[in-house]
């Protein structure tokens, strides 16, 4: 595919601290609004989903990535292209299930949580849950139903931050109803 050749794929760079702090403000506001960690997790996931379904279009337009042939390729694109493009980090892909339908993204450092210390009364808060929603939403738009969740989080005392992704099914395209 040569269609990208005459276009610059440079993204606009900006200070990531502004992004991190804005996200922090969002989470702390949600904590005030809901007073229940589970509900905050749910809201973050929902917002992430809404971002993901739009973000995928930007991603596809800016990278020359075509349709992925299998889940391994998907994992590579997410870790090496997408995370790099939007968060400036490259997580490693590990812990494949034998069937090849599950893997983990290990984040050395989580750009959303740079200045964060979770207080003791928020031990069920999944601080960066927005990422899960965004991954789920983006993949849904390319016909993949995927389950995404944090398996480990340095904010909660784990040694690494791990996002676990499980492929559920391919979403089949169907002819709209009423078509003959």
């Amino acid at each position, binding site marked *: *595919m040569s*269609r990208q050749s*005459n*276009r610059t794929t440079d993204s606009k760079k900006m200070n990531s601290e502004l992004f991190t702090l804005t996200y922090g403000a969002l989470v702390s506001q949600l904590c005030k609004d809901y007073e229940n960690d589970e509900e905050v997790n749910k809201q973050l996931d929902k917002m992430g989903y809404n971002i993901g379904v*739009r973000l*995928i*279009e*930007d991603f*596809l*337009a*800016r990278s020359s*990535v*075509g*349709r*992925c042939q299998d889940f391994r390729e998907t994992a590579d694109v997410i870790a090496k292209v997408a995370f790099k493009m939007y968060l400036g980090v490259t997580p490693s892909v590990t812990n494949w299930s034998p069937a090849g339908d599950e893997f983990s993204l290990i984040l050395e450092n989580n750009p959303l949580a740079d200045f964060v210390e979770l207080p003791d009364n928020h031990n069920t808060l999944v601080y960066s849950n927005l990422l899960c929603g965004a991954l789920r939403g983006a993949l849904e*738009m*390319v*016909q993949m139903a995927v389950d995404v969740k944090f398996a480990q989080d340095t904010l909660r005392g784990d040694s690494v931050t791990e996002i676990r992704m499980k492929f559920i099914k391919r979403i089949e*395209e169907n*002819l*709209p109803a*009423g*078509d*003959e």
Partner: protein
Amino acid sequence: MTVHNIYIFDRNGSCLYYNEWNRKKQAGISKEEEFKLMYGMLFSIRSFVSKMSPLDMKDGFLSFQTSKYRLHYLETPSGLKLVLNTDLSVNSARETLQHIYSNLYVELVVKNPACSPAPSLDSELFCSRLDAFVRSLPFFSPRAA
């Protein structure tokens, strides 16, 4: 050289956008029916092409031509389908369609939070920019060399 018309379909088959510039012959059916007919044909061609291909394909269906016009097709991995009809002198409109997707659709529709693509695009900015872009294409004018 000329551009006849353009269709943009979403992944569910609804026609998000249609515009025509140089269309001498109308279908004689309502636009809704025409959109369904067009989408149905594209859907069938895609499945036909993928079943008949003797080799694995990368991009799949790209275009077809008749004695009078050529239909150019671009589908993104997210299922957005762009269809441009031109006369036969336009060999490939792939770059053009890609430009419409990345520089107009993504920039003006997807990145506009107030603009939800379905059921049909109502962004005036997108419509006017797209119109201006198509009119500026080197192969737009019927008289240009």
